[in-house]
């Protein structure tokens, strides 16, 4: 379930020379595992369960000068859900929740990116709209994304990284899922990753 991503952008950054950048293709750094799709769901209304999906991959194209042209696609293996409790994870994988045997992948494919200015830290932000396919249901969602930075890494590559948040309703994607209370319908997602520029 999850998905995500984003693109963002930077309209004229005064620090960069004015050159026109070309949109570059990036592959999300799965090998080094700089990619996280974390979730947070209320438990009984008293605290939150947080967890993550350990197996995901994706790719995006991005040019900080033209963030609105960015595109992203992320795939998450639902069975990789991890909340640090084997019995719960087993249950979450069952037909009561993810049904990961029947729906092994969740996918997010962006359809539009709308720059929304800068956040308090001066980072470029954008609303990334896309189609989330989860539990066999496809619906549009909007990810509030932030472009965190880009540049050379110490090992000869070039990276760009982002973070984003969104909320999804369990019921909207799985109306027959187990009822664990109305406070636990909303799933907060936090996504962050680096992409390594394809050579």
């Amino acid at each position, binding site marked *: 379930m999850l998905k995500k991503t984003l693109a963002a952008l930077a309209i004229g950054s005064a620090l960069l020379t004015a050159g026109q950048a070309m949109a570059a293709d990036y592959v999300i750094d799965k090998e080094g595992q700089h990619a996280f799709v974390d979730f947070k769901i209320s438990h009984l209304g008293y605290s939150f369960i947080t967890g993550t999906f350990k197996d995901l991959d994706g790719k995006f194209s991005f040019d900080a000068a033209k963030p609105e042209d960015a595109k992203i696609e992320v795939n998450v293996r639902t069975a990789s859900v991890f909340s640090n409790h084997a*019995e719960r994870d*087993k249950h979450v994988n069952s037909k009561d929740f993810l049904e990961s045997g029947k729906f092994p992948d969740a996918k997010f494919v962006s359809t539009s990116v709308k720059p929304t200015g800068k956040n308090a830290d001066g980072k470029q932000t954008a609303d990334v709209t896309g189609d989330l396919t989860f539990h066999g249901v496809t619906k549009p969602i909007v990810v509030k994304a932030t472009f965190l930075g880009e540049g050379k890494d110490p090992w000869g590559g070039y990276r760009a990284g982002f973070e984003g948040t969104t909320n999804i309703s369990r019921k909207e994607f799985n109306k027959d899922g187990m009822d664990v209370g109305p406070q636990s319908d909303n799933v907060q997602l936090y996504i962050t990753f680096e992409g390594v520029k394809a050579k």
Partner: protein
Amino acid sequence: MQLRNTSARYGWVSIVLHWGIALVVFGLFALGLWMVGLDYYSAWRKDAPDLHKSIGITLFAIMLVRIVWRLISPPPPPLASYSRMTRIGAAFGHAFLYLGLFAVMIAGYLISTADGVGIPVFGLFEIPALVSGLPDQADVAGVVHLYLAWVLVVFAGLHGLAALKHHFIDRDATLVRMLGRKA
């Protein structure tokens, strides 16, 4: 009745182990099926699995005692009236019940310990996680635990039907021997 088995009859240790374990196995099976269907807000949702695991671990220990006792005091030999096929079939059947029961218990243990957390037994002490982190461990062990449990109780049912067949059709002492009578 004597404690030990003799060549003519079962002693009470074996008899109590046999019927007690039969009761616990069917009880655990029912408890297991019931608990996985509990609603999230059921009052038993936490206690039922804790009980299931605690009883299961205890059963494992009792099964070890049963095997040791079997070595100390072997069961009486098959009745003279049994055919060769009956003897072979019974030997394989009984071996399957033992092995199947251990396999179900081990699979159950592997579900709960998949993330390296031990299993508390009645809140008194904890059985440590020895094997964890296998690929999809909890899910695979869960499937094995469920289906093998079904196979085991069906097989135990056949074992019971076979005993009734000996009693009512063959009219031999198979069943009454396990109730403490002499052959």
